[in-house]
């Protein structure tokens, strides 16, 4: 878990790790492992926001949670073990990729029910407000434009404003709601306006620019800590891969996808750092190799991790 400020270079390194991890999941899936929903293309949202949080804070996220978890310091070894259903996973193999929580990291929930994270987040924030969390801690909830079409989105925003809950809403507007482009389902622009309508302060930023996201998130977190009240961030980004693996994306507008690939968040951050002289191209390539090696080690760890014993099937259903 990060508690000291991290550099733009560290963010690039984390984005590379997230990317390598998810590409490994995609490869595994092609070999018959359980399916997964990736956040490829949304890594800047994860590192930009999570780097603005500290150890006191809590996170609730959604089915594209790998970035949030890794940015929070989750070990790829234990994530991979969880995805493969092994005992060394954060949840002992019960959650798979779609429901990972990690109490030690302050990650309360990955919800596969779209909007489930919005349903629970106000309660976690209420507990913080009532002194059940670390003093000054806030709650960040990550969701997409699809969840913003759920009724619970409005219920959560309304309650957070009315009860003055220390809650950071982070909408990763990745343009896709499962197999439907968001312009087929909602007005444009809509999400930020909806949040404004509920009385929230709103910032809408380029979600493929890690530094822009980080600056906005830092400001948002400071606002919440100072006022105790919620804040809304809309991060405009793009889901580069399909809804889940495998998905041939035959329904995707190729020109739109290409335009966003040109603005890939890792590329944007790499070019920025090279331009500033913080690193050179071979240096970036070395970081990429390093990430790949880490992920391969994680896979080996996960594959060596035992399956849960069959007789544990009913453990943890009830207290």
């Amino acid at each position, binding site marked *: 878990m990060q508690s000291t400020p991290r550099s733009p270079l560290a963010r690039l390194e984390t984005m590379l790790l997230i990317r390598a991890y998810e590409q490994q999941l995609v490869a595994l899936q092609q070999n018959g492992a359980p399916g997964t929903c990736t956040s490829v293309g949304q890594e800047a949202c994860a590192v930009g926001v999570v780097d603005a949080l500290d150890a006191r804070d809590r996170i609730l996220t959604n089915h594209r949670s790998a970035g949030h978890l890794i940015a929070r310091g989750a070990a790829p070894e234990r994530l991979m073990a969880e995805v493969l259903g092994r005992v060394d996973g954060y949840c002992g193999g019960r959650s798979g990729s779609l429901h990972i929580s990690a109490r030690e990291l302050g990650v309360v929930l990955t919800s596969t029910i779209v909007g489930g994270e919005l349903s*629970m987040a106000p309660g976690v924030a209420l507990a913080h407000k009532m002194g059940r969390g670390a003093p000054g801690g806030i709650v960040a909830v990550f969701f997409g434009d699809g969840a913003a079409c759920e009724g619970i989105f409005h219920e959560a925003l309304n309650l957070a404003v009315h009860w003055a809950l220390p809650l950071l809403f982070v909408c990763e507007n990745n343009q896709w709601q499962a197999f439907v482009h968001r312009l087929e389902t909602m007005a444009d622009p809509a999400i930020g306006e909806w949040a404004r309508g509920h009385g929230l302060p709103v910032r809408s930023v380029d979600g493929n620019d890690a530094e822009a996201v980080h600056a906005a998130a830092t400001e948002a977190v400071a606002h919440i800590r100072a006022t105790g009240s919620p804040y809304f961030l809309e991060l405009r980004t793009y889901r580069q891969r399909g809804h889940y693996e495998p998905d041939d994306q035959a329904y995707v507008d190729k020109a739109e996808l290409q335009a966003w690939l040109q603005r890939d968040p890792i590329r944007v951050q790499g070019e920025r750092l090279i331009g500033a002289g913080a690193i050179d191209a071979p240096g970036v390539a070395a970081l990429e190799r390093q990430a790949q090696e880490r992920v391969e080690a994680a896979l080996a760890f996960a594959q060596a991790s035992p399956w849960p014993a069959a007789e544990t099937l009913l453990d943890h259903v009830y207290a």
Partner: protein
Amino acid sequence: MSKTTRMTVEQAIRQALREEMLRDPTVLLMGEGSATKHRDLVGDFGPERVRNTPLAEAIIAGTAVGAAASGLRPVVDLLFAPFMTYAMDALVNSAGKLRYLSGGQFEFPLVAMGLTGSGWCVGAQHNHNLEAMFVHAPGLKVVMPSTPADFKGLLKAAIRDDDPVLFFTDLALLYQEGEVPDADDFVVPIGRAAVARAGGDVTLVGYAKTVGVCLQAAEQLAAHGVAAEVIDLRSLKPLDEETVLRSVRKTGRLVVVHEASGLCGMAAELAALAATKAFSSLRAPVVRLTGPDAPTPSSWMLEQQVVPRPEAVAEAALGLMADQPVRAPGREEDHRMVENAV
């Protein structure tokens, strides 16, 4: 014998809430009108712990789940059971599943309360006995008491329980009176049925208002010389199999009575229980008397038809006594008269 006080179910619920809020500062009460209805609790425990909410069941329940995962013990009043369908995602997908999916990292100690049952002529969108739906959801416990003492003792147990508990109040019982123990530590454990009347000839099982129906039927059966044992389930999950089986093994005859519809309901479960674990003791087929597979009507006349009547229960029980000499009729005409009168 410890001291008791006579009170209504509604008073017993209030007393349980007060005592648990006093006992444990992490208990909070939320709902549409919770603060409005419990001014005394707001006064004693502050507006932070007794909250009115927006009229939005999904976020009320979701907030309870999030708060429960973070160290609080919320009690949410969702008013009427059918409104719980709006809260279903939070209760079923989150509260019931996330302890398991997290590998035990998080727990969800919360109570969701709802009124249900016939008696107020409020129609199917306020009156729907959907308790079996929640029995079918893993990770949830389901409680549905019948006496003021059990309402108090089970609500206190539900609040102290580390699992999510659905607490259903049969609205027809709300103003019924009974003796309730005064002791602060009076708690009725979840998962234990009560023998409301002892008898050796036939077992009548009910919960909520049908416990009273069974007790009336038992009186009628006594006039025929038939000794009925009446079991009040109190908890639907976990289900107290032992108490039911002990009785069925003794009597060999089982009648299960509830107001909820029959298909895949508690009576079906108990019939299966008797068939799988007490088959050799059964002397007659198991009888289920339940509400119909129909929305509940508002009309008082029609609403009454949804609730199994004591006469029908007694008649069903007598029907199971074919292998036993039963005292001469005489009461049968009476019960036909009662039916005609309705």
